[in-house]
């Protein structure tokens, strides 16, 4: 079997997918990043190699997510793409004709508007992370319910309670207040979903023309309560695609396929990198008052990539890296 590898290293999860040559998702892996992107990526590659038949050929690799440059260096990516483009490509391939993508991940939420298959507008949350996965996680933990049951519980609500959703901190104090008043847990959870949807539509979705078909993806799409709250607020059916939680990785793999269609061979370092000793280190450059925090990635003790410097003194000193990143972006 031959196919394409998509890698999405995000703040909360690290996802890998393997697409066959027709673009079908054959394997999908969802792991927690736990603040250790290199380990998570290596673990993902190890698991993926275990699941794929031994003679599987990787034709191309795409990397996305906030850790895309890191992932691109470690795995050897042919395409390094931002998560907005990757999500849009995945949704429009899996749900042809999609006009609106609601995406809520671990720490960011975005809205992407497409017309005729092309992204025409997008927005990301800027100063506020209320309503993202991390907040739901935290509230579920506080209420002592597994995050997986959050959505089903919310669906049992008959009269959602109104929760102040402008700010995550105040939403939490309002929830505590509502608990103390004696409202039932499902009603509070459903109210929280509605508040978060309100917050999302007012902050991220403001001024955007939301037209159907609407796709809801990202880790939070697993929450049936959030999905119902979106459907009620928008008045349209909200479609959650089968691989909603790894759509970024699917998009990256599709972009790799698009890129490799132009010919050339992949830069994939092979599944062996799972056992190679990669280290991310950092130091503060003291050559000027900017005090840039330079990140250095080493492979078996040898520096393979650097970034984080404003002037290019460090990132530019590894001659081939510029060209490498430039070709990949």
């Amino acid at each position, binding site marked *: 079997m031959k196919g394409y590898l998509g890698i999405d290293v995000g703040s909360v999860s690290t996802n890998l997918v393997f697409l066959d040559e027709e673009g079908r998702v054959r394997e999908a892996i969802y792991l927690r990043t736990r603040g250790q992107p290199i380990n998570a990526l290596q673990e993902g590659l190890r698991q993926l190699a275990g699941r794929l038949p031994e003679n599987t050929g990787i034709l191309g690799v795409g990397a996305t997510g*906030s850790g895309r440059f890191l992932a691109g260096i470690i795995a050897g990516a042919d395409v390094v*793409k931002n*998560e*907005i483009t990757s999500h849009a490509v995945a949704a429009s391939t899996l749900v042809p004709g999609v006009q609106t993508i609601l995406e809520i991940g671990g720490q960011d939420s975005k809205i992407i508007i497409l017309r005729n298959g092309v*992204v025409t507008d997008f927005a*990301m949350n*800027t100063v506020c992370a209320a309503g993202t996965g991390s907040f739901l996680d935290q509230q579920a933990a506080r209420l002592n319910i597994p995050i997986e049951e959050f959505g089903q519980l919310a669906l049992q609500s008959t009269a959602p309670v109104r929760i102040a959703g402008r700010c995550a901190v105040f939403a939490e104090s309002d929830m505590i207040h509502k608990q103390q008043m004696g409202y039932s847990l499902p009603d509070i959870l459903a109210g929280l979903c509605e508040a978060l949807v309100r917050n999302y539509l007012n902050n991220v979705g403001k*001024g955007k023309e939301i037209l159907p078909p609407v796709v809801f993806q990202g880790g939070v799409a697993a929450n049936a309560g959030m999905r119902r709250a979106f459907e009620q607020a928008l008045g349209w059916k909200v479609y959650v695609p089968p691989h909603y939680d790894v759509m970024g990785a699917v998009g990256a793999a599709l972009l790799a396929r698009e890129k490799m269609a132009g010919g050339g061979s992949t830069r994939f370092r092979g599944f062996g990198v799972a056992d190679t000793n990669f280290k991310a280190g950092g130091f503060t450059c003291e050559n000027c*008052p900017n005090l840039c925090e330079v990140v250095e990635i080493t492979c078996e003790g040898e520096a393979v990539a650097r970034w984080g410097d404003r002037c290019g003194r460090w990132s530019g000193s590894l001659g081939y890296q510029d060209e490498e990143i430039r070709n990949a*972006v």
Partner: protein
Amino acid sequence: MKVTFPHMGHMWICLSAMLEYLGVNVVVPPPTSKRTLTLGARHAPEFACLPLKLNLGNFMEAAEQGADTILMAGGCGPCRFGYYAQVEHAILEDLGYNYRLVVLEPPRKHIGELLSKIKYITGHNSWREVIKGIYFGYQKARMVDDLEKQAHFLRPREVQRGSTDRAFKRALQEVIAARDPQDLPKVREKVRRIMGAVAVKPRPVLRVGIVGEIFTLLEPFVNYDLERKLGYLGVETDRSIYLSEWINDHLFLGLVRGQRSRKEACRAAAPYLNHFVGGHGQETVGSAVIYARQGYDGVIQLLPFTCMPEIVAHSVLPGISNELGIPVLSITVDEQSGEAGLVTRLEAFVDLLARRKGVVVQ
């Protein structure tokens, strides 16, 4: 008397040329850095915009090098910048600094006061010499602006990444080194050769107009080197404000012909925003309209967090985007901004423009 002034991009080149030509002792603050920001943000009110925080940091760092007199621009609102000089001075006094403050108010409102302030700074020089000095500074500003414009064109087309930046740096040194107006023609010739040596290859590029608040536009530290980042992504940029245009508009009252003027921008803004809203709010709206008419692929608005004039413009821009069919991305910066988020947005915006246009850049 040792005169200092706040940084705003390459403005220091023009200002020190002007002042040093007139024999004034100048202390250029160290380039704006994270340290500047840390110093300024620690002592400035949280809700003031970034320019106040950085000005303050500049003055504190200049004091370490012996500066004792601040030269600052004033203003008459509604933008808060008009009282920043006084507020910054008061904060510095509270911190124990002993600075003299000279505020240059706009000539349209206070011409007499402006002239007496200039006289105070330039001392024994005749008005003829003062005018020559100001014009010398202006010419340098123009040369720097021309260099920046060339860099905007070259960066997305350069064969070897970084060659434009290296040439630009070298050319800038030449402009900085010129001591006398008579040397300028020679310098002009030399920098033309330096910039001409950057190898380019024809490739499809996108064109993006950058509009917004002047300080955020001109200071690369604040906008995270936006123009360079876009250049590397295969985008040729233009900026709605250049320093020399601002000088011509506001100090020379538009006397120098052949330079773009804010009047055109205000005329273009009229159907959408027919009133002065302070700062460069009206110019932002008008310039976005002009870029759309000129066939640019997109517009990026830059503003410091809590900037009132640009917030007004921000709420007008979606209408222009819809009516004229040009994508607009607004970027707000303050001391809490993160570079990663900015890079993601820029990349996605460039992808959007490229796919819309049906070209592959880079």
